[in-house]
Structure formats: structure tokens, C-alpha cells
């Protein structure tokens, strides 16, 4: 039996590692990778809350499932936008994008 606090500590650390990456990175793809870390930490919390504190219900599991689906769609659209930005500005750094249009 794993104490549920260990899951909280793990997901908190993972969340703020993702936040750190999101703040320090200057590359669009790397920032998106950090966002994926944040989403995964939230998913861990959903699953641990459901399984260890409320084992009778299925809400956490289904929300994790929906979250996985939404993040897949979100990263697909974000990567499409990033590739489009690269075609437009010939750079994938955030500093280079100051206007919506050239």
C-alpha cells in the first residue's frame, strides 16, 4: 500500500519541473514538451486521488482518459501552428514572433 502523499509529492515536483522548463526554454517545441510534463503530473494526481482515496468511483480514471485525448489533440494543433510559424518566420524561437503577420 503506497501512501497517497507520495503521489502528491511526485506530481507536485513533476508539475514544477514542467513550469521551470516552460519559463526557461526559448524554443517553441521545447516549451510544448514542458507543457506535456505538466499535463502528465495532473493525470497522476487524478488517478491517485481516485484509486487511493475514493476507490469506489471511476471519475478520476475517466477524467485522465479524457485528458489524454485532449492533450493529444492539443499537441497536434500546436505542432501544426509551430510548423506554420517556422515556414512564416524561418525561426522557431519565441523571440522571433512579435507580430501576427509579417
Amino acid at each position: 500500500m503506497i501512501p497517497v502523499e507520495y503521489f502528491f509529492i511526485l506530481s507536485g515536483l513533476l508539475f514544477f519541473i514542467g513550469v521551470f522548463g516552460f519559463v526557461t526554454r526559448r524554443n517553441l517545441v521545447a516549451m510544448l514538451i514542458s507543457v506535456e510534463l505538466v499535463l502528465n503530473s495532473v493525470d497522476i494526481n487524478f488517478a491517485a486521488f481516485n484509486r487511493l482515496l475514493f476507490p469506489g468511483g471511476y471519475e478520476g480514471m475517466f477524467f485522465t482518459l479524457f485528458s489524454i485525448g485532449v492533450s493529444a489533440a492539443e499537441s497536434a494543433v500546436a505542432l501544426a501552428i509551430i510548423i506554420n510559424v517556422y515556414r512564416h518566420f524561418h525561426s522557431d524561437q519565441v523571440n522571433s514572433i512579435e507580430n501576427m503577420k509579417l
Partner: protein
Amino acid sequence: MARLVMFAILAVVILASAVFCVSTKRIMRAATGLLFVLFGVAGLYFLLDYTFLGAAQISIYAGGITMMYIFAIQLVSKRTLQGLSERWLGKRTFLAAFIALVGVATVILVLLKNQFINILTGNENALANEITMDIVGKTLMSADKYGYVLPFEFISVFLLACIIGGLVILNKNKKEESK
């Protein structure tokens, strides 16, 4: 006890890969670190007896999203691949580390010090039952009180919208270029 040892191993793998993922200079290594984080999280789901969730995590995240990232990295920039454009940010790195440390201290303090966990824990046989595919399918498709048919339909419409949106975004430039 065996679960605790497995949890410790998975936690070490997840945190080490996450730190490697945000601190490495090469973008392809960051994607590899993300892949190991995703495998570790899938291992956590298996540890919690959410086998369907672990399989979905591996097939969608580790199989699909990581491949998409690798394709995008290869398509975007050669300079980033060779680690030329990611430079040391100086003081801002320390500021970000400070923000992250303050945040993690706050969150962990709040999660550990509140009282509702103490009331709720004590479910010793919480890990005894695995959710079968039967329950997963019936709950996803039922419109009863704890059914999820509405979010399920919404997410299918959402995926369709994302497919169309991605195609439109990527195709718009091509037409302009050909003109």
C-alpha cells in the same frame, strides 16, 4: 512493500528524466526524456491497477505524441537539433528555479497539511480490484448518473475539429506559396 519499491523506482525514473528533459540543450534529447517520463507515468498507472489507462498512455502518448514531436523537430530546424540556438539565460534561469521551488513548496505544503486526507485514508484494500474493460465500456457509453456519454461525444467532435483545424492551418500557406 513490493508496490512501494516499484513506486520508488518509477519516481526516480520520472523525476530524473523530467530534469534531464528540461535541462538538456539538444531538443532531440529532450524528446527522449519526455518519452521516458511518459513510460514512467504509464508504469504508475499499472501500479495503481489501471491497466486500461496504462495501455492508453503508452499507445497514445508514448506511441503517438512522441512520434509527432520527433517529426516536428525534424521538420522545424536544423540549428536547434545541433544545440546551437539554446543559450544560457543567465539570471532568468535562477529566477525560474526560484519560482519553481516556491511553487513546489507551497503546493506540497497545502497537499500535506490539509485535513481531508486524514479522514479519508485507511482504505487498505483500495488496490485489490482492477477495473475491467466491461465497466470501462459501459460507463463510457451510458447516459445514467455516472455515465460519460456526453463527454465522450464531445471529445469525438473535438478530435474531428482538431484534425480539420490542423489540416487547414498547414494547407493555407501552401496555397499562398503556389499562387
